[in-house]
């Protein structure tokens, strides 16, 4: 018997442009039918499809890895319609596929390493496959472990620490100055793209948005998007007095907010804390504003150096995370190999035991004067013989299964003793380790 393998085949932000990823992406409503369609090809036993804006991947478990991968390729090609996938697809099998799944779930393969959304997306993909009935022992175990590995990576490393985009740095800064942002007033001066991204973050955190812009029309459009209010630049001074956070991004060639104006503002707002973020180039806010008491000024260079620092720190943390993934993959592979070994051990023990029981049944009636105690002693002796005979072969089988490459002894044992082990896919993931443990005493007892 040869063991089943896990294969992953797909494309991601590393190998394919956005346009191609968009074409291959599977809408959530169609995912169930597509998963069942893949299984219906008969080339694979289990499948999970992860489809996000950054990746489309088919994970599968199949007895014949090549046939399974072929079916997945054909399905992906059918989604790409006339576009060739040549050079965009990657394929990994066995331990490499498991490692890929663990890395994806742990956000080590993400565009922004450490971003938290991917784990939820992988969980959703697995949930959809479970609902469609296309998961089994191998992929269930693989994904459950992937979730556990992601959790471990998150708790044992600082991979998710620090904000890595200018807009998230601005949002994080506001949170470090004001704590909870619910009800805080955020003033957008100008309506550039970066300011919009920061506004999205801050609005998401519960802040109230006010947009002040030269063109009231544009200000109103942006304010509507974030449930805020619109003002013209004439009302800037009055709004500065009320605002907690100011994000400025106009195209003005000179300062829009001067030190003199801010001195009056600080007094009028009775020295309440204020965070000013200047993401305009050239700058909108006089840098000397940052010297005022209770006013904190950050420009785009400051924000970028903070986000670069966080990205560097994440890369350093990723090295520790890779070590965790490596450990977990090794453990998973041991389990996967034991999955193939266990039914053979069980069948081998059953075969030996069957012979001994049959011989005892034939011999015992011919022996005169045997009491119950004697029969029990004979039973025990028979068990001990089975265990001792099996000790060496089972130890060798286990060693063979744990070694790299194909388990040749396993096939040999099955042929030598004409074994027909039960199909591991029929069992639940939880049963398999229990059987390994049940088989273990046979190995231990054999030593006696």
């Amino acid at each position, binding site marked *: 018997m040869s063991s089943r393998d896990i294969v992953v085949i797909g494309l991601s932000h590393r190998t394919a442009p956005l346009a191609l990823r968009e074409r291959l992406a599977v809408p959530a409503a169609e995912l169930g039918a597509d998963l069942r369609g893949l299984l219906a090809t008969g080339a694979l036993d289990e499948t999970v499809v992860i489809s996000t804006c950054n990746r489309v991947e088919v994970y599968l478990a199949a007895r014949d890895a090549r046939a399974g991968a072929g079916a997945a390729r054909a399905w992906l090609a059918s989604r790409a319609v006339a576009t060739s996938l040549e050079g965009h697809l990657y394929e990994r099998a066995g331990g490499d596929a498991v490692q890929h799944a663990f890395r994806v779930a742990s956000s080590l393969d993400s565009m922004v390493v450490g971003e938290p959304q991917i784990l939820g997306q992988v969980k959703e993909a697995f949930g959809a496959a479970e609902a469609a009935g296309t998961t089994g022992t191998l992929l269930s175990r693989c994904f459950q472990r992937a979730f556990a590995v992601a959790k471990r990576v998150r708790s044992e490393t600082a991979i998710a*620490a*620090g904000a890595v985009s200018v807009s998230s740095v601005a949002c994080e*800064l506001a*949170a*470090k*100055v*004001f*704590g909870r942002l619910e009800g805080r007033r955020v003033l957008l001066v100008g309506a550039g793209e970066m300011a919009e991204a920061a506004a999205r973050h801050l609005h998401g955190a519960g802040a109230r948005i006010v947009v002040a812009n030269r063109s009231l029309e544009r200000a109103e459009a942006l304010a509507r998007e974030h449930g805020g209010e619109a003002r013209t630049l004439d009302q800037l001074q009055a709004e500065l007095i009320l605002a907690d956070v100011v994000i400025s991004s106009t195209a003005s060639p000179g300062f829009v907010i001067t030190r003199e104006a801010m001195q009056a503002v600080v007094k009028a*707002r*009775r*020295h*309440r*804390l204020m965070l000013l973020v200047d993401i305009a180039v050239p700058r909108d806010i006089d840098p000397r504003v*940052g010297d005022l*008491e*209770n006013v*904190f000024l*950050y420009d785009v260079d*400051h924000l970028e*150096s*903070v986000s670069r*620092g966080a990205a560097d720190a994440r890369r350093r943390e990723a090295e520790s995370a890779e070590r965790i993934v490596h450990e977990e993959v090794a453990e998973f592979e041991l389990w996967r190999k034991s999955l193939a070994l266990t039914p053979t051990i069980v069948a081998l023990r059953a075969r030996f035991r069957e012979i001994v029981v049959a011989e005892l049944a034939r011999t015992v009636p011919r022996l005169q004067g045997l009491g119950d105690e004697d029969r029990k002693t004979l039973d025990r002796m028979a068990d001990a013989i089975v265990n001792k005979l099996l000790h060496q072969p089972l130890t060798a089988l286990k060693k063979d299964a744990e070694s790299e490459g194909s388990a040749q002894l396993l096939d040999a044992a099955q042929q030598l003793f004409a074994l027909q082990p039960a199909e591991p896919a029929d069992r639940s993931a939880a049963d398999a380790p229990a059987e390994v443990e049940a088989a273990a005493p046979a190995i231990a007892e054999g030593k006696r």
Partner: protein
Amino acid sequence: MLVSATFLSASALYAVAGALYLVFAARGAERVARWATRCLGVAVAAHVAFVALDYATGGHHPTDDIRQMLATTSLLVAIGYLAALRRHRLAVLGAFITPVTLLLLLGAGFHRDVARVPEPVRSALLPVHIGVNILGVVAFALAFAVALAYVIQERLLRRKQLGGLFQRLPPLDELDSLGLRLVTIGFPLLTVGIVTGAVVAARLGVGEVGLTPSRLTAMLAWACFGAVLGLRALAGFRGRRAAIGTMLGFACAVLVLVGYVLRAEAS
């Protein structure tokens, strides 16, 4: 013997908790902060045992002698901090508060055979005077730690050093309002403490007459905290200046305490 054992255990545990909080402030491992708080909890239990046993054996309560007063003040600072920890993310403050607690407790330890307050000085007002001063010092000690955290956090934010310590300290606004609340609690207590002290001294005609160094520092502490609250109400002053005012006020309050300790020593 048992009294000494509880005293030493509490002191050692405070030292360990303080060291763990320092490690947390420097490294940021949440696990260390949790252990520090557990350690502080056990230290407080040992401290309670020390105060109770000391009272049982010596019969002195906090308004009776300087030793019990310092021990009780330090105990209340630790309890106040543990209570604040339940509502705010203030684990880093443990690095500032635990040493203050330990120093106050050690101060109590060095006054083993202190004399009780002399009979002529005792009056119905004396327990009120000492009681409100203890509570005031507790509020100011906590306000001091919060103010110190504010000053550090503000400096990091201004210098754009947004690394580990910055991430572990609470938001500036939260520190500012917590500091204000603590000073608002402490200030009336200090006022009552000063007034009752003056009344007791005047009624009994004890102690020196005029502006002694101890009275001067007490007035300075009062002026600092009064300025923090007054300028806030009048001109909205807050932030770093308020934090520095709070720290100065607490420094004066500590000087008053040191004055008491030295006088008790001399007597």
